[in-house]
């Protein structure tokens, strides 16, 4: 159709978003690439050191730890958001009354500022004065744990906070998708004698695969951007046991004032992000057909 090829219209529709996005996201990213080959403390001379920052990165044990922590972090966040979110959504579909109320209760955490949630959970995890989790441990006869200080508990503890906070959104998404599956199909399957489990795996889940994948992307994006919870609860500690790339980058750039090195870390994050996006867009293109 000719209308859809109107160049002026295309330009008009695209330019506001393109302009804002290019100037405020892409140009700064390009500048970050530029800073990453510099030795610069944000004040003095900018000194060109080529790939020096990246060579340093390869030898940096903390970077490797942050990278592997980050993967664990993403995994935990996604598992909680998608797994629990789906389970609750599924349970909700069997509920006859009070759905609205329950949905709201689930949604509330996501509108609270992360800073607040981080503080909230710091007291929940606390050892002294005794926090909620340790009260439970005591009830079950277990010794209390200083969750945010122990090397082996700190990363899951911090990741669960971000996981927990946004469960509600995914629950809402899954629930909406599940109830919009055409009742006729379900009825038909029921008449054919399908059990509830079969119904779930053969009818309901297949008809919402799109939503599941898209939620997966959203959750991945959120987890990759994760920052505020670890930063506000543990600052990546103790001894980098809850360090993820974003916190490490932030600390290098702003606390240690090594903008060059911080930017090199940022470049790694950007490259990882682009890889993730390539995977995403491959999925999108498959969908188009």
């Amino acid at each position, binding site marked *: 159709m000719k209308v859809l090829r109107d160049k002026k219209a295309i330009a008009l529709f695209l330019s506001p978003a393109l302009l804002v996005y290019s100037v405020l996201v892409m140009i700064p990213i390009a500048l970050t690439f530029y800073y990453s080959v510099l030795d610069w403390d944000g004040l003095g001379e900018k000194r060109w050191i080529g790939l020096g920052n990246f060579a340093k990165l390869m030898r940096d044990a903390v970077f490797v730890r942050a990278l592997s922590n980050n993967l664990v972090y993403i995994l935990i966040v996604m598992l909680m958001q998608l797994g629990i979110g789906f389970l609750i959504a599924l349970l909700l579909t069997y509920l006859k009354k009070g759905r609205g109320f329950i949905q709201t209760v689930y949604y509330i955490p996501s509108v609270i500022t992360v800073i607040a949630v981080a503080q909230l959970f*710091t007291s929940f*995890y*606390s050892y002294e*004065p005794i926090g909620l989790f340790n009260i439970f441990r005591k009830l079950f006869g277990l010794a209390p744990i*200083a969750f945010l*200080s122990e090397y082996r508990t700190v990363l899951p503890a911090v990741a669960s906070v971000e996981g927990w906070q946004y469960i509600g959104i995914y629950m809402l998404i899954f629930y909406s998708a599940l109830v919009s599956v055409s009742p006729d199909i379900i009825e038909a399957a029921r008449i054919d004698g399908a059990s509830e489990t079969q119904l779930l795996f053969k009818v309901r889940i297949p008809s919402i695969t799109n939503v599941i994948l898209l939620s997966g992307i959203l959750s991945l994006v959120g987890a990759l951007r994760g920052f505020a919870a670890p930063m506000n609860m543990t600052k990546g500690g*103790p001894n980098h046991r809850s360090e993820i790339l974003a916190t490490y980058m932030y600390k290098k750039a*702003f606390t*240690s004032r090594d903008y060059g090195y911080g930017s090199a870390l940022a470049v790694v994050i950007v490259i990882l992000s682009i890889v993730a996006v390539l995977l995403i867009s491959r999925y999108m293109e498959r969908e188009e057909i």
Partner: protein
Amino acid sequence: MFSRRMRCIGGLVLTSAVLLTGCSGGGKAASTEEAGSSSEKAEREIHYFSSRSSSDDTLLSLQEVTDSYNKEGGKIKLIIDSNADRSSYDQKLRTMIAGQQMPDMFDLDASPYAVELGNQGMLTDMDQFLDEIGEKDSYIPLALNYGRTSDGKLYTLPLEFSTEMIWYNTEIFSDAGISEAPKTLDELLADCKILKEKGYTPFGIGGGDGWPLLRLLATYPFRLSGNDFLNRLASGEAKMEEEPGVKASEFMAEIGQYFQPGFSTTDVATGLNLFLSGKVAMYPTGTWELNYFTDEKRPEKLKLGYFYMPSCEGAVTKPNEYWAFGGIGLAVNPKSFDKEYKDYLSYIVKNYSKVYFSHQHMTPQKVETGDSSKFDPLFVKVMEDASKIGETAARPWDVVLKEDVVSVINDNLPGLCMGEETPEDFRKAVDEALENNR
């Protein structure tokens, strides 16, 4: 038909753009009325970016002094923006300065960052300024010199004067059969051991905020070498592997077992409360928390005492030399430091401490104490101690060492205290950081 709608949308964009700029402008105008004096004359705005909370007595005092300056004919509007979260403050200040937006007035430690700023001519020399107005002698030397950078320059004016001590619960101590406060670090450890055997948590600490742990780490080095070891660390001449560093790391590994579990994320408010509610036997803090320990404020049943930094064998610093400092100081942007600003700042120097003292705080300048009966006895006692303080005061590591080194220490210290990391590994990590930050 439709293009009209598009125009509408375009209009929305435009109007909101206007509205937004209008909004922010309006906001500022409003702030002007609030913060300044009531005079209609053109006022000089001075933007002060502060690391203290907006209800802090230092800021209230500054505002009071500004008001009286304006009453005497001055035309200064002091606009205070504050960010009390220290790491946010530091980040923000650095971003502002990197983006060439240095505030007219801001808080700054005598850190390596200050040295760099000073070398670039971006800070006002306060030695020169104080000599010029003849006010240098009004300051307590320890408070003023706290603001000296490693190269001996003075770029900041102190706004407070504080000392740090370790508070202890006398009832817990006597229950454990400890009759007096520890005088040496070995005694401190021995007391901790006894307390722990008695089932008490010997030491409460707000490790989540970083600095309390650093103070303990710095204790041995200060006792064994004054600030010499620290200064040599900063200049790259010394290593943690030397005696003071070895002692310091081993001390931390040992005392760490007496901290409350989970100390590495305990914030200072929680730490303080552990002590106030009698859950821990000792708690280190400074005079800025004095208000919580006074007769009037502390829980009635709590009996307490305090002691200053314990000493050790082979100490070169005297028992009356410990943590004492002027706090984060006031720095001035030389680009805006003209005659009018200078006049205002000298008025502050001449009047600030009087006002700050009336809020019951120790001051960086000598003040007439007058009738001390209106103050809390504890405050009077601490003030008396401070008047007998020695010549050297311990300098905090987080001010002297480069930020990157400090952050490596902060990252590794909790592990060392928990026994997850050996003193050797700790020293190695710090030495590596020192090497990287030459």
